[in-house]
């Protein structure tokens, strides 16, 4: 193969090289990352309209207009992951398995899987123990965190890997595959059969 290529005429070789270079450049378009959201946009991102019971509701227009970046943008997800550990989320929810706070991994969420629910949970807190982070995180950070949290409790496989902190784990992360609900059967999650 090498000998054949080196014996080919120079023109063919340069053509091949050009094609290779062009195709690699095409593949190099990076995902856009917002290092600083414009203040008006950030303000607009805060205008969620949850339903009166605090569950689900309409995301802000700005969120939809931007193409829901916090769900899949690699930069935002990695920021969200960092916030998850820096703001002590793991103290109550562990790495998705839960403690005094509920688990995320099983996809069984008290306030549903919608982005708005998660956003409102983080921003305003919830009555059974979730503190409000309104005064501790910017709107953008809350969306980044919400996006990351959503990937932990994936209802379906996602193309963007959340990179949940699996350092303590001896096997690959479960959340790369669809969640297996604890409530799949009418049995209590963990069988008493011994």
């Amino acid at each position, binding site marked *: 193969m090498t000998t054949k290529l080196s014996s080919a005429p120079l023109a063919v070789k340069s053509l091949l090289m050009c094609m290779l270079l062009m195709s690699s450049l095409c593949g190099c378009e990076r995902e856009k990352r917002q290092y600083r959201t414009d203040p008006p946009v950030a303000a607009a991102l805060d205008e969620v309209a949850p339903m009166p019971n605090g569950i689900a509701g309409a995301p802000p227009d700005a969120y939809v207009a931007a193409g829901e970046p916090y769900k899949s943008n690699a930069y935002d997800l990695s920021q969200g992951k960092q916030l998850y550990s820096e703001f002590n989320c793991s*103290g109550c929810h562990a790495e998705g398995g*839960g403690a005094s706070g509920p688990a995320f991994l099983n996809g069984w969420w008290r306030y549903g899987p919608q982005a708005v629910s998660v956003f409102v949970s983080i921003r305003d807190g919830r009555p059974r*123990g979730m503190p409000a982070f309104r005064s501790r995180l910017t709107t953008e950070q809350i969306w980044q965190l919400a996006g990351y949290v959503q990937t932990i409790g994936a209802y379906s496989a996602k193309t963007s890997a959340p990179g949940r902190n699996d350092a303590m784990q001896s096997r690959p992360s479960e959340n790369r595959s669809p969640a297996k609900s604890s409530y799949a059967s009418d049995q209590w999650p963990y069988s008493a059969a011994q």
Partner: protein
Amino acid sequence: MQRSRALDWLITPGIWLIFSAPTGAHDPASSQEISPTRYSELTQINRDNVSRLKPVVSFRTGTRGAQGGAPLVVGSTLYFLTSFPHILFALDLNRPGAPVRWQFTPEHDPLAAGLACCNRVEHGPVSGAGHINFTTLDGRVIAVDPDTGQVAWNVRVADIHNGETLVSPPTVAGNELLVGNAGDDFGARGWIAALDAHTGRQIWRHYSTGPDQDVGVTGGQDRGSKTWPGESWLHGGGSVAAPILLDPELGLLLHSTGPPAPWNPEPRPGDNAWTSGIFAREPQTGAVRWFTALHPHNSYAWAAGTADISVDRPWNGNNRQLLLHADSDGRIYVLDRASGELLAADALLSKSTVSTPKTDLQVRNICPAWVGAIGGNPALAGPTGLLYVPMSRLCMDIEARNASYLQGTPYIGANVRVHGAPGQPRGAVVAWDLERRVAAWKIDERFPVASDVLATSGGLVFYGTLDGVVKAVDATSGKVLWHWQTNAGISGQPMTFAGPDGRQYIAVIAGLGGPYGVASEYWIDRRDATAVRGLAQSVADLPAPRDPSGTLYVFDIE
């Protein structure tokens, strides 16, 4: 299967078995609560007849899990407190079936539920100053009238927004009620407070960290702040979560302090005084008489979570006033109560194995795990000098992480995975011979033993298991003489009392609380090895409770 069906009729709410007819032989005014040594002089139930023990009352509380603490019997009324949000029940022992005389549900702040992860919870009512007094998880101390349940006073002493909760019953000392906070893992600064038992007004409060006047010591050279970097003592833990012990003989309050926060030891170089030690204070002022440090700069988050016992016994030929402290590191510390002098620190099972956690590195097989080797309050049989200690044998792998203090959120800085010690069962009950300083006997248990222990003059020791079995064992040989499968795990205090009819009864509340209760909750996903600070996987094979509600059982000889 047949057994559980046979139990069904028993657990149905409202169905009661009948108490034997009252004869009024018992002094109606007397108060019977669990004694500080958890030893009872009652002998009607003993080695010979314990095999005939049967439940005569079962009362389903309808509240989930977390049934710590002991019931209290005053006259012909049995009081007990359910898990958070609490309900105080008063049951009439004079009437057949022991119906509810009254029940009281204090107002509560549901936010406190988010703080209840990993502490032992023991919310038993205590009798004092003519009231029934109890603490609540959300930081209240409440006194109610014993006959009507009317609130005499209700004060809030712990700030849940700061991560503080109350997890132990108050201690009555004359006209004072003593309470201490929990919340090490939220970076809450530990404190102990004395309240006026008649009004709830605070008399004094002292902290486990900070300058000398805050701690209540003189000439301590501000070790409470100088052994910490910067102002980190302000959120340095050192809670007073375990029950406070009153020593009326010496006029002392004895209490342990919890571990420093955060778990990651790197951000807090120094001794981190006055965490992880034992204080002796004067009841009137809270001034410190002595302090004995057990784990300066505690790197393993070993909580000092169980009750201490005071006893006067010969020690090396001399009569001494001793304090027995079963510590999370798996040792029994024997101290002189008057001076704080450490006389012995014997390993109850095997010695601990430790290595220092490092940031972003996994350090494996630290034994015992953070939850501690002592599962519940030990009991001391005074006449024989045997101390019965419920134990857990768990180890942990810990990966220290950077911790950031944010008020009201967990301040831990560690990923933890907990597992059993290789080749050993996860639990045990050890009878420790104080005289010979060896274990007289040991019962291995499949799961960590998280219940408290009761010893009686009838030569019996009672305890419960995480899978809900109440056991009575021979106090001298450790032979299991009787057991009964309840509907839920047991993490509370078995208690015995003489009923108004003069008969002896055993009362146990089933309903799993504390860290193992959280670890077996339905909202936990055990595929995450770090769930519930790593504890969820360590008891992943725990059978689900037959009934998620708590149930009070009262047993009597058939």
